[in-house]
């Protein structure tokens, strides 16, 4: 893909800025670094960076994978530079319109339950699960983004999901909120 024009760029920003910032934030741990990383990624794209570094293939899916790849690499670079940083939870973008404190607490509980479980996985597993289920990338795209083999991605997802299911089964009996929320 050659350097996108501003309409394309606006469309790509609209479509991907939030998922990319969220993804970068899962690596850097803080929103501002994540935004910087994503800004750099888009600027690279805007300047035709995809042209020079891409390995071929020029469809939109590829653009998406490219954006995630660059975001990931830059976020990891950033992390290496600031490796001593302890990430903080940032809730800046959460809407304020919350229900009463009790309801909010309850909601928090059930939502964070799954996130707690995710914490039990390895960083690798967490990352592929994010890419797969939060960003809807295919195995191949995840492989491209993470520089892992497709087989490796399949293995990480398989073991990650298996572990989550096991944890969920253990939790379900003790945590009513969890079963409440889905399916």
């Amino acid at each position, binding site marked *: 893909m050659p350097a996108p024009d501003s309409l394309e*760029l606006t469309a790509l920003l609209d479509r991907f*800025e939030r998922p990319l910032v*969220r993804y970068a934030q899962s690596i850097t741990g803080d929103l501002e670094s994540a935004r910087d990383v994503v800004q750099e990624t888009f600027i690279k794209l805007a300047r035709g960076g995809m042209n020079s570094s891409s390995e071929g293939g020029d469809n939109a899916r590829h653009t998406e994978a490219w954006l995630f790849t660059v975001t990931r690499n830059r976020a990891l670079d950033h992390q290496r530079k600031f490796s001593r*940083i302890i990430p903080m939870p940032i809730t800046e973008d959460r809407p304020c319109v919350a229900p009463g404190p009790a309801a909010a607490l309850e909601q928090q509980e059930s939502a964070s339950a799954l996130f707690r479980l995710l914490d039990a996985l390895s960083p690798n597993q967490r990352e592929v699960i994010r890419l797969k*289920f939060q960003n809807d990338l295919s195995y191949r795209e995840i492989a491209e983004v993470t520089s892992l083999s497709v087989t490796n991605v399949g293995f990480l997802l398989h073991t990650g*999901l298996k572990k989550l299911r096991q944890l969920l089964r253990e939790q379900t009996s003790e945590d009513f909120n969890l079963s409440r929320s889905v399916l």
Partner: protein
Amino acid sequence: MNADDPKFTAHVLGEIEDLTPAERAEIEALLASDSAAAAEAAETRALAARLRAELSGEAAAPLAEHQRAAVLEAAKTPAPASKIVQFPRRATLLAMLAACAVVGISVGLVYQSLQMPAPVSIPPVAAASGSLENLHADIARLTVAEPPAPVQLLGVSAPLAPAHSDLRVDMGTLPPAPDIMNTGAMMPPSPHVGGSVVTNPNTFTGTTVLSTGMISVNGGVTTFSSSTITTFNSNVSLTQAPTVSGTNGGVTVLGTLATADASHYRRWENQAGIESETAAVQLQDRGGSHQLPSAVTKASPNQQIAAFTSPPTGGAYAGSYSDTPRDYLQGFNTNAFDAVAENGFLAVRDNPLSTFSADVDTASYAIVRRMLSSNELPPQGAVRTEELLNYFTYDYPQPKGDAPFSATMEVATCPWEPEHRLVRVGLKGREVPRDQRPPSNLVFLIDVSGSMNMPNKLPLLQQAFRLLIEQLGPKDRVAIVTYAGSTGIVLEPTQDKEAMQAAVDRLRAGGSTNGASGVQLAYQVAERSFIRGGTNRVILATDGDWNVGVTNQSDLLGMIAQKAKGGVFLTVLGFGMDNLKDSMLVKLADRGNGHYAYIDTPMEAKKVFVDQLSGTLVTIAKDVKLQVEFNPARVGAYRLIGYEKRLLAKEDFNNDKKDAGEIGAGHTVTALYEVVPAGKETPPIATVDKLKYAALAPQPNPEPARSAENGGPNQINIVTTSDGRVAVTQDKTEADGSITHTLARSDRAQRVAETGDVLLYGMPDVTQGLNRCVATTPQTWMKLARSGKVEAHGPHRTLVIDGAPGGSKLAQTSSDPMGLPASVRNEMLTLKLRYKAPDGDKSTLLEYPLVDPGTSWEESSRDFRFAAAVAGYGMLLQDSSHRGQATWESVAAWAHEGLGEDKSGYREEFLNLVKRAKELTR
């Protein structure tokens, strides 16, 4: 192959492209034969759906506005040869430090008793000039130090100029980088915070680390909140609901406070508008009604910010108040036109639209002039500021192309309230040269009742009509109808100018008036000699004294409106001052698609009948309506100056049945808005009581966050996510075994029992594969069908990123707030105009956006200054509460600055009137 094979999982997830046909067959056989494996698959699918839903609820912030802008900017500039090292940054260390102070200032609060375990030190930084926007610094230089090293904040002194937008910091005195710890936060200043706040130099002395919990408020301010909170220093995190207790108590800050590591910097960018509404902190007022205390927006000029005092126990918090977003989300109400007297300020969030009818009447100016020249101050009701403004012609450009008029806007500092902006909207009707004027069929309807027998009435009237007759061409026809005790045709339609002059000369006053029968007769005559494609107009000259016969106003007005539809328009000329029925004449002209002028002097007669004859006779556009939509990100409140009697309901703008004002050839229409920029202190705004029944309005019931155990193929799942919205997911298995994922986010979702389709309400946003459909209004709803089809009802925006090989296609229609290009977000307002051709039934829409370039008063145009002076004159005559710093002296000064060429001497005369008014009010 068994269920514990990654390939099995891949198949369940629809990842079939890397499976061989043999593997696929084997897995499908396993699923069909082995119920345990099938159960595993179902469990994995359920988990996948849940992950999709829950993970979608995780906060996903967009880029900061300036970052987006930088990206789009990068697309315009060609790529540099070297790799990108730096990106535009507006706020860096110093900005943050200062911003931290500034935010504190803007709120005027200091929070103490936060503990900071390790000392933080920052070498003194002198503050000087340069706006916040211009704070560029190399962030890399500023983020170097090794983390565990103690950091000291020695003393940042920052004399801060008014308000956060004018933060001044000098980058020149930066000490060597490694000593500096980058900290600080810039809160998104709420649009409702601000005002002119000036502080003393503030001193930051050493600090330590935040620990937990209690924040106490210095001073008796009730509420405080910040969406983000700044901390300095080591790896200490402060999380979970700290309590803010103030002297007025009862405030809880929920949310998470974030700390920055010593080696790390953190910025909170200023994101006006939407972003600041979604701040992370929620305010709860235990004590009932929740008000934005004025103390928050108006800090005293000498408020001392005693940040970071007394190590090791001191810590300072500064924050900006985010107005309750709840109010924001309840939508706009439409209470825009209940002003009876002078228009007051309206909040943009409640009334984003200002709608009014064009008006070219000028009578009020002449009436006021007449009164002032007889040493009388006009009653407030006689002062219609729009008529004062429109009395003058301004140098607006001629329309281009086919449009009958041009529209121009100018914005600059409001001279009587320098914190405010003054927006001038100007329309200019196409000039029609005299020789191109279509033939006219004029009927003079002249009041010759006894009350007209005064020097400033009938004789002046005769003089006026003689002037008019002189201007007429050979194709123009005139008839004269008089009305008094009896009504009669004095002159049958003729093109003979001498006959016209003679008939005018013969007019004598006497008897009483039955205006209504005269009006009927005049229209009959006009219709009899109707000129198709020409000007057909009754020109009524009266002192407005209707004292004989059954003058049923509404019947008369109805008749005039009907005749106007038939193509005969009405111009009204008022004479005399003793019993002028001003309000009636305004209405007559309004209904008759004409304009109302008051003739007090031969000069004025010349203006109406000679200088502006084309405008008086030739209507170039009718039912001209203006609607201004203000951008809440830029404008907090506004006030339309004048046009009180021309206000329309916002729905009337698009209603072609709704009558509005006409514009004649060469006429100019000028309207002024006094605008309070977002973030500035808003003048008192009339409010209504809270709605009693609002909560009872029918709303679609959301489906409980639970769904059937086994819903069959392509089941749609609904989950409530942690942000309080719902996530709706569907995994649709396609014919080839691949799976199409659909994820929808909305405020509410409702399942249709019969079909299993799901209806989405409250800003739905549906992503299906790479394609996305986003609602752009709160009314928009969408349907996700079991078949996987997405239907949108109401305004929405679709974003298609077609993954077809051979290139990406991007299509975008309309926009959602976040997706709006920065250029649109920067707009102050959009002016919309509707008009009809003089003989047309359908209106045409024109739109003009306006960006405020920050023009100062000194940079404004002459016409702008003169119009401001006229508005000031109107406000002083009305004794307006909005007159601010306007005095007779300042009005005269502004008018003098705006005098310009003044060929006709009207502006010079205005200066005399100002002088006269000043003497009379003394």
